[in-house]
């Protein structure tokens, strides 16, 4: 019996259907047995392969590598949003960019893994990146809040310092007449200070600091110039001279047993001496530009010198309740005026002025006269009774102690400027 060589090439394509085919092709039992063995081997191989593949596929799932990290993703996102909500864009922009970039990388990695087929997914790296993004975002929030707080505090410090400077400028402006330029500068500084306060209230700390620094700087310039003008009240030579005048006036009162008057511009005080003893002190107001000595008519300064009362003007004869007329200008005033005109300090058409009085209508709380010494009406009533024509009146800048200008100069020298922050 001739054996037909079987065509086995199809076996490679359909190994599990071998037996069916064999039967159809009338194979002998040996061939069938051989093929059955081959079929069992193939089946075992396929089963083994499938099992191995199954294990390989399930193992990552069992280890949790393929599970999306939704919680970590949301947590990192929240942290980034929180950092953004602290206005980290303004206060810690570098940190925020870094946190956002890290979150973006993490998010891309997470999404990349989501899009892969299940067994191939691996969210380990995404999780690490998300944790790092969250850490950076949390650090950014903290840093942003710290910087914001520091900026707010710094703006507050700038505003406080500016307020001190403006307050000092205002104190100078109340104590002395400021030139137009300085007055403008001071008002400008007050406006800038108010703007700084408004901006600070609205959370615009950087702008608030800027305005506060401008306010402080302007006010300091005003105070600086005012302090310079007032510094004559602390000038050792002048103070010594004024003290000498006061001493001589008091000595004269002591020697003669008569009354004498000493006016201290710095302290805004008029003191009556009798037999060398101070018997009464009145609060006075002076020429509104009294920081300096009187040089000419119309400068609104109260003169400094030794004068006498030349006339008494009772009520009805004075426009200011009552008045005691002084013999201003005296010889020394004339000499000084002529010298100043000669050197060109005063214009040729300037005049020395006259009619300096001690009068009433005072008590306004600030210097307002054009050079006279003003008392409250009750005080001039009292003084009028104590003083007669010929009474010496010595007007000095001050004795160098405790006067308004002396204090302001001292305050200006002692306090640090607000022009720059630490």
């Amino acid at each position, binding site marked *: 019996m001739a054996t037909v060589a079987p065509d086995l090439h199809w076996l490679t394509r359909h190994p599990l259907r071998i037996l069916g085919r064999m039967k159809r092709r009338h194979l002998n039992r040996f061939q069938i047995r051989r093929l059955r063995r081959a079929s069992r081997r193939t089946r075992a191989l396929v089963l083994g392969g499938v099992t191995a593949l199954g294990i390989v596929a399930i193992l990552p799932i069992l280890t949790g590598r393929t599970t999306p990290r939704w919680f970590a993703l949301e947590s990192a996102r929240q942290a980034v*949003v929180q950092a953004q909500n602290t206005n980290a864009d303004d206060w810690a922009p570098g940190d925020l960019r870094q946190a956002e970039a890290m979150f*973006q990388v993490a998010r891309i990695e997470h999404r990349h893994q989501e899009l892969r087929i299940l067994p191939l997914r691996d969210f380990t790296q995404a999780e690490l990146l998300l944790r790092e993004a969250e850490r950076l975002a949390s650090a950014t929030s903290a840093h942003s809040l710290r910087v914001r707080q520091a900026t707010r505090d710094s703006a507050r410090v700038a505003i406080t310092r500016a307020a001190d400077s403006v307050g000092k400028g205002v104190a100078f402006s109340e104590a002395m007449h400021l030139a137009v330029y300085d*007055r403008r500068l001071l008002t400008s500084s007050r406006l800038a200070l108010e703007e700084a306060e408004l901006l600070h209230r609205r959370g615009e700390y950087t702008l608030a600091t800027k305005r506060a620094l401008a306010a402080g700087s302007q006010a300091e310039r005003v105070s600086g110039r005012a302090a310079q003008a007032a510094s004559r009240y602390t000038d050792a030579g002048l103070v010594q001279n004024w003290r000498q005048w006061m001493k001589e006036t008091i000595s004269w009162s002591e020697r003669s047993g008569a009354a004498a008057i000493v006016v201290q511009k710095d302290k805004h005080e008029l003191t009556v001496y009798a037999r060398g003893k101070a018997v009464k002190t009145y609060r006075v107001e002076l020429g509104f530009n009294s920081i300096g000595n009187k040089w000419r008519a119309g400068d609104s300064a109260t003169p400094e010198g030794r004068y006498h009362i030349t006339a008494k003007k009772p009520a009805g004869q004075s426009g200011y309740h009552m008045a005691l007329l002084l013999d201003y200008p005296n010889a020394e005033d004339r000499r000084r005026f002529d010298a100043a005109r000669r050197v060109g300090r005063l214009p040729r058409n300037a005049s020395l002025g006259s009619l300096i009085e001690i009068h009433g209508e005072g008590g306004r709380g600030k210097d307002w006269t054009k050079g006279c010494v003003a008392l409250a009406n009750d005080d001039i009533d009292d003084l009028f009774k104590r003083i007669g024509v010929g009474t010496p009146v010595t007007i000095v800048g001050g004795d160098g102690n405790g006067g308004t200008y002396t204090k302001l100069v001292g305050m200006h020298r002692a306090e640090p400027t607000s022009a720059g922050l630490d």
Partner: protein
Amino acid sequence: MRKMKIAMPILMVGLAVVMGCAKPPQADIDAAKASVTAARDAGAADYASASLRDAENSVASLDAEVAAQTKKFALMRSYKQAAVLSAQAKAAGEKATADATAGKEKAKADAEALLAQAKTAMDEANAMLATAPAGKGTAMEIEAMKTDMQTVQTSIAEGEQAHAAGRFLESKAKFEAALNQATGVKTAIEQAKEMKMGKKKA
């Protein structure tokens, strides 16, 4: 069976062509980014910071989706989600622009209302100063107040410059400070007048 053998490769090639042609919705992405840029240009950083932040985060989500898809095997990419995110980002950008415009308009209107009040107060203070009796003692104060009002006027002019430049927060602060200063001057004049009246009566 033979038909299947022919159809399968054709189907595979067709699918590959279709899938392989998946490209990012660039026009939509560009439109979304342009809407966020427009919001920023409209001043959203100052006047609608929360909305701008939302829009920027939407764009970041979109970028992440596109980047994740780009990492995939070319035949497996799908930009459907990117298209959805583009639309969301565009809408968020447009909302930020609208919010910024509204916020800016409000700040502008507030500043203008303050400007009007400050100008009125300044005019009233100037009128009061013009008619204030300038005697000995008061002339100096009146002059000082006039100087103050000139400074207020300068400050208002500076505020108007800031306003014209669109810096409404700054102009608002200037106008408010000017208004308070002018009101302060008015109050001072009124008090001085009252004091004088009281003195006369006494």
